[in-house]
């Protein structure tokens, strides 16, 4: 899952927007066994979304790349004595959607169901089975291992994917953010079923869980839902904090041959974490440089002025510890040196002088004026609840977000970028064919 990069807030445009928006009223509580719950009532549509996220991402793989991924994959492939076919068939007969997934920081199980009792109750029973009682059958494990191996091999066909995971490998070195969450051919082949069960027992526990709920149910029903789904989960212990990411000391560049017409470039370094004191200057500044869609500087220099790339952008991925700051583009093989040099020059110029006052104002208008779009649907709100909960962000995070954006100055951006973004220590990964 790519976490939402754009977080909106509200108040700035009070003077310019005609109405004040209703902020979702977030209710928060902690269950007896230690799970943190975040809930928003949304009675408009007869449906319920639930997301249970555990600090059980690949950062916990402990040298066995793919362990978190395989554990997550097996959850709904047999639980409480029901086979994978039976679970899928029952869920889908209810019109419900039950999905599992994992990334570096987290693993999650999600349910979307109609909200009337005839649909929701049996769906919750299945949801609870998958979370509380996965069977980890040997035959399912073998099959899913084979499917993962084929998926990894297929991903090698994509120069962009190769560039992406190579960037993490090179940039994060010995840090647990370095390996591919899906694992490698070798690491997946070496994983044993018993290790999945151990991983599950350690990390799929209540104190390590964040429950987010959005939908057509009242507080009492939400509490019952939580109790039904994870009330019996052992309390366990919250996962240890992810170790800090060491900053890179020198630049490195790696070229990998790939039989493709385009060359993909990934350039960057560890960037910032959730709750980072520099979050707002870096976020707003990057909106000007490469985060603002069709109007950013990188987009303008690389695509609009020179036609070198279809997509070019830069973004921070704030994670529990410093996630990457990444600049990306892809171009015809014989143009890669030119494109890379434009990208580097654009970055350097931004670091030297920062945004113009006009650019800063324009970006602030886009970020704050677009706020209502980003909380317009139940699924948008569910994602925010999960980020707020998982990363222990304050409950008024959304409410003060626009104020914080508006408070950012040009000087703060220049200062934060000069301290935090250093081209002289960046990793550059170049994957593509011959000229």
């Amino acid at each position, binding site marked *: 899952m790519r976490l939402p990069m754009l977080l909106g807030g509200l108040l700035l445009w009070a003077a310019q927007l005609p*109405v004040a928006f209703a902020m979702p009223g977030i209710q928060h509580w902690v269950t007896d066994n230690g799970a943190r719950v975040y809930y928003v009532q949304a009675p408009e549509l007869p449906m319920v979304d639930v997301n249970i996220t555990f600090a059980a991402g690949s950062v916990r793989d402990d040298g066995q790349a793919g362990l978190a991924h395989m554990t997550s994959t097996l959850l709904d492939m047999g639980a409480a004595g029901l086979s994978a076919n039976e679970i899928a*068939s029952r869920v889908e007969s209810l019109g419900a959607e039950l999905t599992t997934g994992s990334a570096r920081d987290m693993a999650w199980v999600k349910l979307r169901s109609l909200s009337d009792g005839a649909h929701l109750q049996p769906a919750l029973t299945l949801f609870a089975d998958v979370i509380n009682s996965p069977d980890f059958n040997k035959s399912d494990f073998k*099959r899913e291992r084979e499917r993962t191996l084929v998926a990894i091999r297929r991903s090698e*066909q994509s120069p962009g994917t190769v560039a992406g995971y190579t960037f993490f490998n090179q940039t994060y070195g010995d840090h647990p953010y370095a390996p591919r969450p899906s694992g490698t051919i070798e690491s997946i082949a070496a994983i044993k079923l018993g290790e999945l069960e151990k991983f599950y027992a350690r990390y799929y526990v209540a104190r390590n869980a964040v429950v987010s709920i959005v939908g057509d149910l009242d507080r009492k029903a939400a509490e019952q839902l939580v109790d039904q789904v994870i009330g019996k989960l052992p309390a366990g212990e919250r996962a240890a904090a992810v170790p800090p990411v060491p900053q890179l000391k*020198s630049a490195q560049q790696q070229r990998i*041959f790939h039989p493709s017409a385009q060359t993909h470039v990934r350039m960057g370094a560890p960037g910032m974490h959730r709750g980072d004191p520099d979050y707002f200057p870096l976020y707003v500044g990057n909106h000007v440089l490469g985060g603002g869609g069709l109007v950013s500087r990188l987009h303008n220099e690389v695509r609009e*002025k020179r036609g070198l790339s279809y997509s070019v952008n830069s973004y921070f991925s704030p994670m529990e510890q410093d996630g990457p700051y990444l600049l990306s583009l892809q171009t015809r093989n014989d143009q890669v040196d030119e494109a890379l*040099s434009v990208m580097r020059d654009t970055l350097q110029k931004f670091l030297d002088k920062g945004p113009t006052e006009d650019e800063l104002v324009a970006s602030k208008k886009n970020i704050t*004026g677009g706020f209502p779009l980003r909380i317009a649907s139940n699924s948008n709100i569910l994602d925010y609840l999960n980020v707020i909960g998982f990363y222990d962000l304050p409950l008024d995070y959304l409410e003060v977000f626009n104020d914080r954006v508006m408070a950012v100055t040009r000087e703060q951006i220049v200062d934060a970028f000069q301290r935090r973004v250093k081209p002289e220590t960046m990793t550059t990964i170049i994957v593509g064919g011959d000229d």
Partner: protein
Amino acid sequence: MRSLLASGLLLLGQFAQAAGVVHEYQLDNGLKLIVREDHRAPVVVSQVWYKVGASYEHDGITGVSHVLEHMMFKGTDDYPAGEFSRIISENGGSENAFTSKDYTAYFQRLEKSRLPVSFELESDRMRNLHLLDKEFDKEINVVMEERRLRTDDKPTALTYEQFTATAFMSSSVRIPTIGWMNDLQNMELSDLQHWYERWYAPNNAVVVVVGDVDPEAVYKLAKQYFGSLKPEEIVPPKPRIEPEQKGRRDVTVRAPAEVPYTIMGYKAPVLATAELDWEPYALEVLANILDGGSSARLTRDLVRGSQIATSAGAGYDLYDRQAGLFLLDGTPAGEHGVAEVQQALFEQVQSLKDEPVSAEELERVKSAVVANAVYELDSTFYQAMKIGQLETAGLDWRLADKYVERINAVTAEQLQTVAKKYLVEEALTVAVLDPLPMETGQVGHTASNGGGHEH
């Protein structure tokens, strides 16, 4: 089971009515406006759909609709290149555009009071685009990069492109939306100018607005901004009905890849072309019986059962403008080859012909369709998409609201009938991705202190 489906339908009925009041208007110049109210959040999505896309094109200018979509961001006399996107951005909006076989569409998502900004800019570029060589020379390169990214460097996409061009000899369904590379290399500004003049007019456009708006106010706004635009005489493309296929066709794509893949398709009617209008709904259900989730037959039998495939799927688009394909695809597992996957897929097809689908399976598909109809209401963008797709396929947007009802009316007997009628070898095309060895590997690594500018 029956009570579950019934209670789902009841829920849908109550909420779809409340959430989805739709109003249709037509301006004197022929522009159609469709407004769907959704008052859950103070936002609006505005989409302008033009009835033009790759299926309107012909050999030599393939990709022209999509290139024109790119050029629509390159300025008018009032709003020169870059201004459109700058203004939308400053208004807190997000925007983009997309081109398909049957349509080219432009959209903005905005806080609801900003709708006039969208209408002002969209009405301007509907008739006043100023195509310039200096912008085209750069943008055509961007489109060629897009083609490399989306197709040339993606073995499965490349296979699909060749597969489609093999399945259809005459029908313009064969034309890839991105365009053949050589056509892009030979495209000229005059091709775009001609295409723009021919198709971009109010009487060939549908404006779809979904959100927290008052329909009458939107209608007034539309008249204010779009009302004065001059209509064109729109001459529809020649029908180019595909000649009847007389036997199975095969195509092999050899490209550097790690994993083999097969895709196959049977010629099938769509809602816009079907003589019997229940048939497309039956084909839609058939695709869901095979691939409507993890419990559907292909995953159950091929992925988890025989474990011949690591993934397998089926697909069918009933809302296309022209007759298309009922698709099946699969990726072999382990030591299994594409031939075994194909064999397994053929057996699935045979079983659809031989035995009626069980009541339980049919009920599962219908329950999912009902629930999805509720879930779709969570996205204003998706609601607008549905309306635009139907209208540009020459269908009535009201069909979207009939979808659940029509799917629910499909019987097991009808499924067997369409399987026997359309999933036949005479109408079959099969493509295989045959991987060439991929040579990869590190060719250079440099580490340096403080050397950020090697180039």
